[in-house]
């Protein structure tokens, strides 16, 4: 068990990061902090996916540069690049909505949201 914890130490760190983000998202009432929590969760997922593709002492997947022979898997990199773009898009729309909520309600605290002014 302890052995597994040490060999998977990257995954332990990622899990802690994910849980921290999730806690911020559900426990904080401020909408902006919820978005930040969501971003922390996303970062944890991206770090996890990239970590799976790494090789200890390996090289980035760039051919014709005299690197190798152990290349990191290019597939997680491409997937995470797509994921980051979607995460940025989600964050942008969320921030725009928060600005709109502030304009309509005068607050971005979840508990204080009532009828529109």
């Amino acid at each position: 068990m302890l052995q597994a914890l040490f060999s998977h130490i990257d995954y332990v760190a990622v899990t802690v990061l994910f849980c921290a983000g999730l806690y911020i998202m559900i426990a904080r009432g401020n909408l902006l902090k919820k978005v930040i929590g969501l971003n922390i969760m996303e970062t944890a997922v991206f770090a996890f996916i990239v970590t799976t593709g790494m090789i200890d002492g390996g090289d980035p997947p760039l051919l014709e540069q005299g690197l190798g022979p152990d290349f990191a898997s290019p597939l997680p990199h491409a997937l995470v690049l797509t994921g980051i773009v979607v995460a940025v898009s989600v964050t942008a729309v969320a921030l725009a909505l928060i600005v709109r909520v502030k304009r309509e309600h005068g607050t971005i605290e979840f508990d204080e949201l009532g009828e529109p002014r």
Partner: protein
Amino acid sequence: MKRRAYKLLVVALGLALLGGLLWLPPPGQPGGPVHEHVAARYVEGGTEAAGAPNLTTAVLLNYRGLDTFGEVTVIFAALLAALAVLGVGAAARNASGTGKPRVDARLPASPVVNFIIRLMAPFMATFAAFVMIQGDVLPGGGFQGGVVLGAMMILLSVAIGPDRVSGMVAPAPLGWLRAIAPLVFLVVAVSGLALSGAWFGLSDQPALGHALMVVLELAIGMGGAAVITGIYLSLAREVE
């Protein structure tokens, strides 16, 4: 009380996650399943098949070009959504004159910050162009270069004001510039259909394939930078 329940929930979920993750093969080992199957084929023959020594770019622009087409459409749609939520209302309020008088609520940047930003901006733009154009050979690519360029535009709008940054491009070309990535992807996809009989058929002739790849990277970068700048400006205008 509620906080404690949340904490218990999160810790329980974390332990469950950890339990699952510890069953996976440890990271960093060459023989893991993520390095076999399709990834191994990319490393074996990806450069010949896709025409890019940077295998991540090869996957993005060639093997999964259609995915990337969807991706650039997503960021464009995000800009449209942000403008729909913010822009129309703010424009109407400013036009009718019932809103607050426009005051410059930006923090006054110090002369030192201003000078440094204006000094660094050309170098940042050059680096962004380098990252975009060399994206198929070296680490980098359209999205990375676009983000560098977008960050430069945001810094500039801190230094010289959002109004002067948004005045850099006239409104009509700006609309096309923001939509350039999906449009160029559409053109390249259809041209691939005509040239080599497959969607995104880039690499029948290596020189043409390489040129098309650079065009795609530039389109992603310019479009991404325009979208990021547009989202920032629409948010910044709201704060003023």
